[in-house]
């Protein structure tokens, strides 16, 4: 290995730069939404620090305002986050050189972009702890700090949409998605997932489109994958 840990950490930090604006935007949006939905400043910031998952935090906010039982909030958070089960199952295969502490602290930071960037890295070269944390660690203080900014000055942001920040994450995820196009059966599984997710999004609603769509594409990939091995067993 010619690269030092420092180089890998810096490469990770460089790769996370493109999404920093989006992280800042969504953290401030969450902060402002939190204090406007019945949470105190401290509770809003604590939510970002303890959860570090935008979708879960917004679902929590939404349900907290509706006077519902605690178990239903936890179930909704579990449903919204269920895709993360697949993330650690997949990315964990490349974490052979992580210590248990690195692995299990790393999973705390395993947000969507961290997963995408980790997979993309592992496709090109060995995923090192230094790269993983170089990408993930800068996101955390920015997420928590900008939540505090949004909670403190939430009412000062007048028209955040004019800057297009709401679209930044979508475009970034699209570029990650295309980064995986050389994988076997990528197009067929992506098309299957995409079609199912659009239909479920339209006729059932969010967030069910994510897991249902993903599972159909993954099942198709399993069906199409490497049939030459163990054919007799699967027949």
């Amino acid at each position, binding site marked *: 290995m010619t690269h030092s840990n420092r180089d890998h950490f810096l490469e990770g930090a460089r790769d996370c730069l493109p999404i920093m604006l989006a992280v800042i935007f969504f953290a401030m949006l969450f902060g402002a939404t939190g204090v406007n939905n019945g949470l105190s400043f401290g509770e809003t910031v604590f939510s970002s620090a303890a959860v570090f998952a935008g979708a879960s935090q917004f679902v929590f906010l939404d349900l907290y305002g509706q006077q519902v039982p605690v178990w239903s909030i936890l179930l909704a958070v579990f449903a919204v*986050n269920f895709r993360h089960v697949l993330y650690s199952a997949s990315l964990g295969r490349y974490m052979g050189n992580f210590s248990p502490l690195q692995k299990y602290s790393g999973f705390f930071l395993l947000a969507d972009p961290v997963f995408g960037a980790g997979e993309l890295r592992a496709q090109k070269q060995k995923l090192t702890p230094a790269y993983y944390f170089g990408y993930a660690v800068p996101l955390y203080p920015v997420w928590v700090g900008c939540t505090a900014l949004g909670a403190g000055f939430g009412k000062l942001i007048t028209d955040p949409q004019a*800057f297009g920040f709401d679209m930044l994450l979508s475009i970034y995820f699209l570029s990650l998605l295309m980064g995986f196009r050389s994988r076997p059966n990528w197009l067929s599984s992506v098309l299957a997932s995409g079609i199912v997710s659009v239909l479920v999004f339209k006729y059932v609603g969010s967030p069910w489109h994510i897991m249902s769509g993903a599972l159909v594409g993954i099942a198709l990939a399993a069906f199409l994958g490497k049939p030459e091995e163990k054919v007799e067993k699967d027949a």
Partner: protein
Amino acid sequence: MLEFLASNATMNNVWFVILLTGVVTYITRSAGHVVLARFKTLHPRVEAALEAVPGAVLVTIVLPPALTNGPLELVAMLAALVASFRLSPIGVLGVGMVIIVMGRYFGF
């Protein structure tokens, strides 16, 4: 504990509820690996399924909003899609964001 889970989330217990949402999130983020790590070798079909995870999940996050956000957002996503065959993530972001910001500035 069951009694607590059945009670409503209120101002009095919200710190603990937030902590629990964090715990649930952490469980989903580690569970997949915890389960898979029990197996020494993975069946080729399981490997193929895991290889498909990033594409299959990301498309469900990207596609439904892209089709329902509005015409300007769709155009920006299509341009970013074309750009992604050639450009790095930063370049793709640049193409998409320029279209969004310009389009909204001119009132589309």
